[in-house]
């Protein structure tokens, strides 16, 4: 693509990793601990892509002596990352429902298989999330959202038919694990000197 670079029309990849995983430098590929969402990343995403939403609730005070708001304050805020993948691999499906996978190696009397239990109990798994694509400075550069702590809050409902591929709808909600840090958007502007 060419200028204007700030007009971005390209897919972004999403990665999850165990809580506390260091975020990659902009000019480095993610470490192996970062697992692509979708076996082939954006090539498993549906064409609606990745949506990053900043939400907020703002309170207002309109005094009795006026008809106009005199004060506003933020009552709540949040950040969500949503995407759908056409990928029913066991690891991706298990990840979508916060389930642990059991891999059974092949034996002489049984085939190899992987399975997971969908009962989840009260504990909600936490992850680090990385969303990465081209930079608004230059589409040869990288930009990324660095979300240190998220929960998977989507309700995947894959449909099995001959009309469309089965999809997993994912929705990651950030939370404040490190005080004052919800998500950093970082965009590369130049190469190394």
């Amino acid at each position, binding site marked *: 693509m060419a200028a204007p670079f700030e007009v971005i029309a390209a*897919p972004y990849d999403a990665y999850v990793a165990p809580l*506390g995983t260091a975020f*990659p430098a902009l000019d480095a*590929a*993610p470490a192996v601990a970062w697992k692509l969402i979708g076996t*082939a990343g954006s090539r498993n995403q549906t064409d609606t892509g990745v949506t990053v939403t900043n939400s907020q609730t703002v309170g207002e005070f309109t005094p009795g002596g006026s008809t106009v708001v005199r004060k506003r304050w933020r009552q709540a805020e949040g950040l969500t990352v949503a995407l759908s993948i056409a990928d029913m691999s066991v690891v991706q499906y298990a990840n979508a429902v916060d389930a642990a996978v059991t891999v059974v190696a092949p034996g002489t009397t*049984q085939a190899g298989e992987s399975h997971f239990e969908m009962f989840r109990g009260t504990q909600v798994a936490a992850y680090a999330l990385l969303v990465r694509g081209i930079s608004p400075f230059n589409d040869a550069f990288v930009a990324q959202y660095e979300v240190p702590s998220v929960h998977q809050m989507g309700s995947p409902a894959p449909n099995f038919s001959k009309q469309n591929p089965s999809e997993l709808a994912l929705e990651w909600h950030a939370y404040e694990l490190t005080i004052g840090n919800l998500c950093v958007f970082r965009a590369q502007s130049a190469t190394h000197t």
Partner: protein
Amino acid sequence: MSHLLMFISSSPHPYGDGLVYDPDGDDVTVLHGGTFTVQDDRYDVLTADPYTAGLVQEVSTDYSQMTRAELEQAARDAGIDNPDDWEYYPTDGSLSAAIETASTASTQQQAAPQQQEVAPEQAPIPGSSDQQDAPSQTQAPQTVPPAEPGADQPTPPPQEGVQ
């Protein structure tokens, strides 16, 4: 001959994942970061299957014999600076796997050849999964080992041309 192996799960939240490495034998499930010993025939089965081969790693240390305090010291020795943080290492297995991958990363990075540059016309779209799919990419792909938190892999420089 026997082999000491560690199960390293490929999932992004691996702590509850398990591997039944010998369903014909004692049918034991080993958790992420757990070590187990197999003989040649079972080792061949595990490493011949491309799926399970990616989940096991031959190791020299049986971490299951170590206390949490010993594991934390070993982790510090391997360059992990927060091994006592239970938020990040909630199980002994998660810490064992982190030590093993950090140690392997350190060893292999020392042995890794110098990275080659990529011609601009071959460079993949930065930051996308194209980077991982691109067959022309020369980012020392197999020389950088799996890593728990930390250790980034190098990537080729992006295309020329600045805004």
